[in-house]
């Protein structure tokens, strides 16, 4: 895997040239002689200059994923990023129908993301985040060779903010095409020995923002923001070709992150929760269970369920850093739903009684209108439900009883 090329400086110069060319009317056919194009697209999306097509990334929504040239093998977006690309993982991922996810960040040469304690890092213009969703034939055997590519989502930091572009892999997996209206992709997998038929849904461009939005104050604009690249989710080791290393340290060493604390142990980090951990829940202490559950709710819910998010009107605030005991109602404890008319249950969380908690009910259904999250899954995350059940039933012994 060559995610760090030695000729980054030269690449940067080429990318600059490409940008200038694009500004000067690139995109018309006039540049053919100076700027060779691929056969697939014309204009800036067809340019071949640079290792990745930075000018297209910053200015155009290309029809084909391959036009951006983000990966060494355009049919495999799970490895070998071009340019400055670096792979990364989150401590605990958002659940998406048991698919595998392959994430890369491409920060333009010489630029840096600014560290933030609580929010997603502030990435410079030109940054690309690529996330590919791929379904294994059996979730016990993940990896590109055993999987079917579904979609690759790009978030691109342009001069006017983040753009979200959903690409769906075509039938022969030779390329992925931009589908701003999203789409349905029927897939199958085997999970814990059970066959699953999944009518996987690729979100449309508006739905991208349904989760990826932050409105800092009531008078400020609602803006698109990444969700995953936050300190509390990135602060873990990753197995790089050069060896295992803390991701934040690696980003600092690669020169793409500025302002992170020297002491990574001091960062309040969401603990890892994998599907295999579900069977270990009974052995977790209350404190461990609280951290696991709050971490799961953070990555799966808090992008909307926060005062700055799409579900601000619900009063449910599930950021990992929000202290539980001092914010019981914001965690749903004995809180009546505000905007949910369905179900026969009374409270978001009834301590000691998961079966009668709305959070559990809505996680445990696939029915539109009832299911949570509203988008991004069509099946139930059994292991997630088990975690939240255990948390509600056992993990909050000091929470009050709800008295109707």
């Amino acid at each position, binding site marked *: 895997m060559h995610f760090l090329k030695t000729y980054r400086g030269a690449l940067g110069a080429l990318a600059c040239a490409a940008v200038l060319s694009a500004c000067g009317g690139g995109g018309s056919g006039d540049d053919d002689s100076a700027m060779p194009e691929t056969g697939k697209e014309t204009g800036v999306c067809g340019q071949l200059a640079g290792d990745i097509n930075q000018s297209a990334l910053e200015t155009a929504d290309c029809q084909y994923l391959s036009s951006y040239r983000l990966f060494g093998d355009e049919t495999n977006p799970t490895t070998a990023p071009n340019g400055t690309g670096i792979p990364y993982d989150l401590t605990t991922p958002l659940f998406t129908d048991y698919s595998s996810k392959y994430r890369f960040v491409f920060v333009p040469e010489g630029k840096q993301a600014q560290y933030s304690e609580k929010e997603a890092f502030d990435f410079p213009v030109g940054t690309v985040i690529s996330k590919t969703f791929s379904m294994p034939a059996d979730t016990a055997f993940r990896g590109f060779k055993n999987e079917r590519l579904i979609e690759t989502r790009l978030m691109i930091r342009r001069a006017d903010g983040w753009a979200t572009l959903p690409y769906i892999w075509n039938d022969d997996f030779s390329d992925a095409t931009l589908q701003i209206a999203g*789409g349905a992709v029927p897939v199958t997998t085997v999970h814990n020995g059970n066959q699953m038929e999944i009518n996987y849904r690729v979100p449309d461009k508006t739905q991208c923002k349904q989760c990826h939005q932050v409105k800092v104050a009531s008078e400020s604009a609602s803006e698109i923001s990444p969700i995953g690249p936050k300190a509390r989710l990135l602060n873990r080791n990753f197995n790089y070709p050069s060896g295992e290393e803390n991701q934040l340290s690696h980003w600092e060493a690669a020169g793409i992150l500025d302002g992170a604390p020297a002491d990574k142990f001091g960062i309040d980090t969401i603990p890892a929760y994998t599907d295999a951990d579900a069977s270990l829940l009974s052995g977790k202490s209350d404190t461990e269970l609280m951290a696991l559950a709050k971490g799961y709710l953070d990555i799966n819910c808090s992008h909307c369920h926060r005062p700055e998010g799409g579900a601000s009107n619900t009063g449910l605030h599930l950021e990992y850093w929000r202290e539980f005991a001092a914010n019981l109602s914001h965690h749903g404890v004995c809180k009546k739903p505000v905007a949910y008319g369905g179900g026969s249950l009374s409270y978001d969380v009834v301590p000691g009684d998961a079966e009668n908690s709305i959070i559990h009910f809505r996680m445990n259904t696939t029915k539109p209108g009832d299911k949570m999250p509203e988008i991004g899954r069509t099946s139930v995350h059994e292991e997630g439900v088990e975690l939240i059940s255990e948390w509600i039933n056992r993990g909050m012994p000091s929470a009050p009883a709800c008295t109707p």
Partner: protein
Amino acid sequence: MTIRKNAGFPHSAVKTGLVIGAVALTGILAGCGGSSDSDDTSSTPQFPEGAVMLDAGNLTQSAKEAFINAKSGDVIVFPEGRFDIDDTLGFDASTSGTSIENITITGYGKDKTILDFSGSAGGDGIYIQNGMNVTIKNIGVYEAANNGIKLKNTDGIHIQSVATVWEGALDQDNGAYGLYPVESQNILIEDSYVRGSADAGVYVGQSSNIVLRRNEAVENVAGIEIENSTNADVYDNVATGNTGGILVFDLPIGNHLYGSTVRVFDNEVSKNNAANFANASSNPAGVHIVPPGTGVIVLSTSDVEIYKNEISDHKTTSVAITSYYLADETLSYATHQNVIDDGWDPVPRNIHVHDNAISTSGSAPEGKLIEDIINGYVATAGAVPALLYDGLGELLANAGADPQVAGAPFADGDRVCAENNVASYGQVYGTDPSNPANIDGSGPKARLLFETTQSALLNCATPLPRLSAAKATINGKSYGCGSSESGDSSAASCAL
């Protein structure tokens, strides 16, 4: 994609054969003076040059792409017919760094362009966010799993002649809200039709500057609900056949948005006697608590004026005004500290009910929440009052018994006052704390005060001032009684 050309009669929703449905239907046609007829027979609507005409052959994708690619000023036209839509149709006006303003979403008529979401993968029908000056008109949204049309964080909403409908039996699995603006400002909803929602047909939540007029809310749990909102005028609407007609609620949400200054006037509120088909959760303030057969309810909201309405044929009560104490026995500073500190006030103050024509009330009272009250009144007075006030919050405030929750003792301007309503009056608790019959060391005591004709109850020596009129400003133009709008066919209501 199935296309059913024959959208049918606009209110074909009422095909259940329920007697109440047929009655309601007759009522609507009579009530709206044939205006819906003229809608039905009007010639093909004219759309401006450059309007985005959606592809009937692939409507879900075509609509999504039009919403995503929208530019300021776009008029997006759904075709005529009935169409199955596969997913929520979302429009976010603030996705590309610049705000997209002044979008119009339209069809050929609320009974001619029908989007059927019964097979949709999404919860909401149409979901609009972060908009500025959005117009939706002449379209019907049917069978959404959750909400028909939801709008969030949008300044300037004009909904005109839109239908949100759940057909068939009134069922708890119907969607929650029909027309649902939330955390929004400057909202005008007019000439629209909502039917069958298992929560509220028109539900305006956590919003401000609201004008609702000439809408028909039929056979929902709540017909029209104003929740945690300020500066709202609800007038010249018809609410009939719902469980409760018009609700003004203030709920403990905890996001700094609480209601006040709501006027409900010149509405026809009748026969809201449907069985409550909301989900029977024990959420203290869910609409499932609405007693079937209730005309107008004020819960916890302060500064509300209810006047010149025709409120008829309600089998439980016509107008109910209550603090949150009645809805939630556990209400205390300990249980609600977050929201009380956030600004929520569970005790309604400055409520003015006057000049309403109230008739035929309390013929067969029911309602689990107020069962004790009903039984008590039936036993002591032989009837449930047509105008019912709990008095409990005011009593506790006056007694200083629960100051963090109930607030300061009532001043004259805080009172609940009523005049010129020909109706029986009732008050569950007396409000004078110096009277040991009202409260003593063991706590407040229900008095079940009753007057066949008003004498002392809610009779204020100091008249309450009238509330100011609301207006909604959309695209630079203001609508409603608080504006200088001309040509409003409901202008007469404003003069009342």
